[in-house]
């Protein structure tokens, strides 16, 4: 991604504190069209928090968010969706007691001319999108609670791609999945990337995402250790960034990089 192009998302100098703890401290990260950026770090490194600021779940204390070169005012999830930012949360964020179609359209229900819910149309759309993701899925009438982990995951993913997302955030998308389903998610990421969607992949496990990502951004203690193209660094070097905060030569160091005594 040449530096001259305007990034799809550019988060600059973001900070947020909960009580006295600076969960995210002066973090900057960007994402281009058709690019997959993996956000890596230990549990509690601040990657989920940073991304929840982008999806509108948290309000940042400082910093700016640019979407396609223009400053974006994002203070709640509705705002984020207006900018085409869709999120698949680690917890999936599904309403367990209603069916798949209701979850897919939660907050954006289709309505009839009378202003009532158009359940039939929503179910038809749901069948279409689920047919693409998980062709064997047939349990449209049952509450999501009764579905398997993989099926629930596909409902959450379907919801994110149903509304023509431009920016997709996937928080630990494969944490609850078996090997076969993980491979499916990998395929999906490649397909969406080819469609020109920018994707943030968040993971604490480098093996899940290294092969899918174009770039990695490593966080530690709320700060960015460094960013690197996956072609310029090895897995071991990235592990070093995650564990020690040591920035290798192939990466651009961030404020959280270990200062090596000269």
């Amino acid at each position, binding site marked *: 991604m040449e530096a001259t192009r305007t990034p799809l998302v550019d988060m600059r100098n973001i900070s947020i504190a909960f009580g006295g703890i600076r969960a995210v401290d002066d973090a900057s990260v960007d994402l281009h069209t058709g690019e997959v950026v993996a956000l890596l770090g230990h549990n509690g490194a601040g990657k989920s928090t940073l991304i929840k600021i982008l999806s509108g779940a948290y309000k940042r204390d400082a910093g700016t968010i640019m979407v396609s070169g223009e400053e974006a005012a994002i203070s709640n999830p509705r705002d984020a*969706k207006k900018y085409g930012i869709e999120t698949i949360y680690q917890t999936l964020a599904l309403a367990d007691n209603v069916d798949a179609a209701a979850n897919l359209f939660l907050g954006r229900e289709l309505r009839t001319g009378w202003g009532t819910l158009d359940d039939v149309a929503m179910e038809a759309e749901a069948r279409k999108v689920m047919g693409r993701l998980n062709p064997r899925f047939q349990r449209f009438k049952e509450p999501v609670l009764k579905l398997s982990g993989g099926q629930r995951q596909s409902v959450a993913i379907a919801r994110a791609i149903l509304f023509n997302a431009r920016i997709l955030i996937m928080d630990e998308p494969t944490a609850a999945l078996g090997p076969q389903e993980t491979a499916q998610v990998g395929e999906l990421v490649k397909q969406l990337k080819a469609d020109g969607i920018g994707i943030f992949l968040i993971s604490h496990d480098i093996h899940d995402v290294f092969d899918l990502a174009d770039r990695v951004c490593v966080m530690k203690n709320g700060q960015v250790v460094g960013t690197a193209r996956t072609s310029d660094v090895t897995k071991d070097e990235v592990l070093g960034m995650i564990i020690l905060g040591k920035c290798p030569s192939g990466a651009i160091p961030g404020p959280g990089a270990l200062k090596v005594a000269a």
Partner: protein
Amino acid sequence: MTDMTSNASPDRARASELGPIQRFLKATEIDPRMLGMLGALLVIWIGLHIMSGGLFLTPRNLWNLSVQSSSVAIMATGMVLVIVMRNIDLSVGSVEGVVGMLMGFAQVHFLVRMMGLPLGDPWIWIIALAIGVAVGLLIGALQGFIIAYLDVPAFIVTLGGLLIWRGAAWWITSGQTIAPLDTTFQLMGGGPRGSIGATWSWVVGIVACLAVALMLINGRRQRKRFKFPLRPIWAEAFIGTVIGVFILGAVWIANSYPWPVGIVRRYAEENGIAIPEGGLFIAHGIAIPVLMAVAVGIVMTFIATRTRFGRYVFAIGGNPEAANLAGINTRWITMKVFMIMGVLAAISAAISSARLNSSTNSLGTLDELLVIAAAVIGGTSLAGGSGTIAGAMLGALLMQSLQSGMVLLGVDSPLQSIVVGAVLVVAVWLDTIYRKRV
């Protein structure tokens, strides 16, 4: 052949493994829990009928039962939404009390003495009811605001409301009872004149049957439009017939209960009708409060299942965080639910004060517990996220059946409370077992 699309469903392959009962339930898409409730109600009715020596299942008793249940049933529909959202409203009985007092005060003192409307003016009842509904809405909005925006738990806010509004009810007239009420207003309480008579009852019944048929046909057309699995024709016909028979049966029962002899005589004298040999048979027909309860039930079912608002209420109950992340304004929805509850408490207040033909400050005492019990017996889960309006109304009918049945049997009033309490606990226990098995 288009009706055969249901065979395309992949689940159909497994249908052969199901027993006849399951197959029947699957084809008709009847909720087994609802069926269980109807069964329980039937068992209780037949049991009470036998124990009371044939007094229970009479047109007169069933008609009275329907009138007595309507006030609690109306509030139970709102309580379903409150409980589905993982809240509780302990104040409904007291809100009913204070609104009843206010409406009594409005029609007897305010409108007549202060505004100078003549006694018996046809506007009085509707103005009084409008004032009551507005006050109910305001009380609900205030409590809802404190719960939703100031984050005080609903249990505490409405527990405070329980005391506050009961105190306010006392305060309005320093504890005096207001009676009698406006004659038109009284019609909302039922009684011979507060019923719509035989002819209109049949009209209502037939219109209701047509509406059911239309809904079934429309639902089928919708599903066909998108090529979804359809119910078999026999299942549709079966459901339509059962509901139709039920509606017309209820109308027939209401029309089998005649006016008492004394009222018939007075009515005949007023209208110059000669009473024939063997007495004049004038049927009650459906009582106005029952019609109001049914209307509320339909509107609330519509709100709960067909509108965005209802969908959000259930989604918030299922997972508040997910609803929030989906961009739903959960606070505003919470506040609206309590506003609806306030309005429903006001409607109930109109019915119960009209039935007593007086406003007393004890009106609706302990009703909050009956309402919550009705909702819970009707299958509303206290953990939130599930419940139906129809179930709650059936729950109200079940509680009222027990209570009035015990009165018929001459059971002492302390024992009545013991039985009702025990039934509540057992009903929820059975429901817990059912939920675990499914």
